[in-house]
C-alpha cells in the first residue's frame, strides 16, 4: 500500500510538471526542437535578493518592459525582419521568464540557451544595438532609473557573443 502510493506520487511528480509546463509546447506556441530545460540557459547569473526584481516592478513591470521592447522592435525597420519569422508568443513568454529570472524573481527560466535560440538567425551587431535601444526605452517608460537599467544591461551585454553570429 505504502509502496504503491510512493510510486504514484513519484509518477505524478515527474509527469505533472512535464504535462503542465512542457516548455516546447505551450498553448499557442510553435514547437521547437527538444532541449534540456535549465536556469543556466538564461545566460547570466541572477542578482541576489529581490531589490532588482522590485526595482523593475516585479513580474508585471517586467512583462510591460518586454512587451514595450518587442512592440518597438517589430515597428523598427532596422530589425523588423528579424521578428517576422519568429514565434512572438513564445518569444514574449521566454523573454519575460529570462528577465525575471536574472533580476532575482522567484520563477525558473524554461527557454533555450542564447546560443541555441540565435544560431540560425544570423544577427549582426547593429541588430543587437537596436534591440538594446528599445529595451532602454521600455525600461525608461516603466520608470526604471538609468543606473539600475545599466546594472541589468551589464548582465545581458556578454550575450552578444552568442546572439551575434555574423
Amino acid at each position, binding site marked *: 500500500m505504502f509502496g504503491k502510493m510512493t510510486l504514484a506520487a513519484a509518477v505524478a511528480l515527474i509527469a505533472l510538471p512535464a504535462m503542465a509546463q512542457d516548455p516546447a509546447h505551450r498553448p499557442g506556441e510553435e514547437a521547437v526542437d527538444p532541449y534540456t530545460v535549465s536556469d543556466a540557459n538564461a545566460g547570466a547569473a541572477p542578482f541576489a535578493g529581490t531589490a532588482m526584481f522590485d526595482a523593475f516592478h516585479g513580474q508585471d513591470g517586467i512583462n510591460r518592459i518586454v512587451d514595450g521592447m518587442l512592440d518597438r522592435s517589430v515597428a523598427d525597420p532596422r530589425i523588423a525582419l528579424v521578428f517576422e519569422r519568429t514565434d512572438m508568443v513564445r518569444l514574449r513568454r521566454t523573454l519575460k521568464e529570462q528577465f525575471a529570472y536574472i533580476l532575482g524573481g522567484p520563477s525558473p527560466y524554461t527557454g533555450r540557451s542564447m546560443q541555441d535560440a540565435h544560431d540560425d538567425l544570423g544577427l549582426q551587431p*547593429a541588430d543587437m*544595438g537596436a534591440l538594446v535601444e528599445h529595451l532602454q526605452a521600455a525600461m525608461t517608460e516603466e520608470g526604471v532609473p538609468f543606473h539600475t537599467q545599466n546594472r541589468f544591461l551589464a548582465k545581458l551585454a*556578454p550575450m552578444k557573443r552568442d546572439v551575434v553570429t555574423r
Partner: protein
Amino acid sequence: MASIRTCVVAAAALFAASTASAQSFDLPDSRSGGKLLLTGGVSTIEGSGGGGLATWATTTGYGAEDGIGANAHVTFVDLPDYEFRSAGVAVGLWDRVELSAARQEFDTGDTGALLGLGSGFTFTQDVLGVKVRLVGDAVYGQDTWLPQIAVGAQYKTNDQGAVIAAVGGQDDEGTDFYIAATKLFLAQSLLVNGTVRWTNANQTGLLGYGGDLDDDRSAQFEGSVGWLVSRNLVVGAEYRTKPDNLSFAEEDDWFDIYAAYALNKHLSVTAAWTDLGSIATFEEQRGLYLSLQAGF
C-alpha cells in the same frame, strides 16, 4: 582661420550626409549606427576618437563591427593668453580601424607680440592618425576584466619650423605612438581609460618635436574617467602628462573636467574646464574648452 572655416563647412556637410545615412548605408555589410549612444566617444583635439585631451581605444563614430562611422569636429579652447582651435574628420571602419585628420591652430593673439613673434602669430599643426583595435569590447565585454585595447600612431607636422628651431625645438615633424585601453564598467555606469603615448612633442607638437633638453620619445600617460549621468550625458575628468624638452619654457601636464552631451547619434557637444598649465612662459593657461561633433 580659413582652414578651420573649411572644416566647419565639411562638418555641416557630413552632418547632412549622416541624416541620409540611415537609408543609404543600410547594406548588409555596412550598417551605420550599431553602437549605443556616446559609446563611440567624442573627438580629441588631435582628431582621434576619445575624450577631449585623451585618446581612447574606441573607434570613432557609431559603426559597430558590421558598419562604418565618421565624425567631424570643431574645438575651441579660450585661454588667458592664447586661443586654440582644432577641426578634423575621422572615420571608423567596422569598429576595427580608425583614420583621422585634424588641423590645429595655436593662436598667440596679443601674446605673440610679447613673445617677439608678432601679434596674432599662429602655429598650425596637422595631425594624421591611425588606430587599430586589437582585442576586447569596451561596452559588451561586461563579464571580463579585459578592456578594449587599441594601438595607434599620429604623424604631426608644424608649419613654424624656424620659430621652433629658434626656441630649441629639434624638428617640425614628429610621430607619436600609443597603446590605449578602455573599459566601460556598465553596472557602475563608469568609463575608464588609460593610454600610454610615446612622444617627443612639445605641447603636443604645437611647439615642435624634441628639444634642447631631450630629443627622444618618452612614455607619457593620459587617463580619463567618465560617469554616465544619463543615456545622453557623461561627465568626467582627464589627465595628460607631457614631456618637458625645451629649456626656455617649462611644460606642464594637462587636466580637464568635462561634460559631453549627445543630442542624438549625429550631434554632440563637449564642454570642459581645462588647465593647460604653463605654455611658452605664460603661466596658468586655464579656460573653457568647447567642442562640437557631427557624424554618424
